[in-house]
């Protein structure tokens, strides 16, 4: 019995410690079209500022978010017209311990970033390719990217380490 109580106490302590180190924004829905990209970036920027994230990390995360959102708008929903209500993008900003996390959820065509080819500027200059820098930027500016797909949703989580985070 005493061992059980001790286990429960440890579990409760760890849970409280875990949640006390976590801060989240509300999940906000956006219409995933090009015209909304500036507003999505502004939302992420404001949420990161509320969470006292240092400016340098904010700038990296905004650019990484911009690239991820651009991919969603341009490719995941390329078969839907701009006015289609199915162009949904859910955005959330979170911090946990020393990690900043941006979650992007869309219902478009699945695309695992792992399969994106590396940038090749010579191919761009030869006209064999347009773009190709976005995924590279995302990967370089963040510490980790996690992608998963399920129940008709694609989820991209962008992670970046950030020391000395404060609770909002």
């Amino acid at each position, binding site marked *: 019995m005493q061992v059980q109580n001790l286990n429960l106490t440890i579990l409760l302590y760890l849970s409280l410690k875990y949640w006390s180190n976590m801060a989240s924004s509300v999940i906000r829905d956006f219409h995933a079209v090009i015209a909304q*990209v*500036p507003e999505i970036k502004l939302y992420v920027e404001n949420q990161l500022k509320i969470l006292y994230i240092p400016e340098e990390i904010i700038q990296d995360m905004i650019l990484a978010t*911009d690239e991820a959102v*651009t991919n969603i708008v341009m490719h995941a929903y390329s078969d839907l017209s701009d006015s289609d209500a199915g162009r949904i993008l859910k955005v959330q900003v979170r911090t946990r311990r020393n990690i900043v996390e941006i979650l992007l959820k869309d219902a478009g065509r699945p695309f695992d970033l792992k399969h994106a080819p590396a940038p090749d500027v010579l191919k*761009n*200059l030869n006209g064999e390719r347009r773009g190709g820098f*976005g995924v590279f930027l995302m990967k*370089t500016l963040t510490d980790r990217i996690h992608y998963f797909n399920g129940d008709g949703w694609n989820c991209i989580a962008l992670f970046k380490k950030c020391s000395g985070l404060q609770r909002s």
Partner: protein
Amino acid sequence: MLKTKQVNTDLVIYLKGRLDVHLSTEVEKDIQEIINRNSDASLILNLADVEYMSSSGLRVLVATMRLLKANGKALKLCNLNQAVLKVFEVVELMDMFDIYETEESALENV
């Protein structure tokens, strides 16, 4: 429409704003029109008023370079702020472009 300035045989184009996917398509179209109207000119893109650039902006610059190379003309960039320079550094494109600190130094090296 983008602001331009003719300096001898060269043309300076002043880019402005946040070069993300929202603005880049329009900027690319404007630059292409300017190049078509001034096919003998080399270009200097002054980015002093570009506060932010994503890969969409980068794509416009690469496409502009491609267009000019096809015409045998040069492209130079100047007045890049730290945020924009960082994008070039991250994607390792510093060596691909002629980047100058000021418009004057870009014009001197034509």
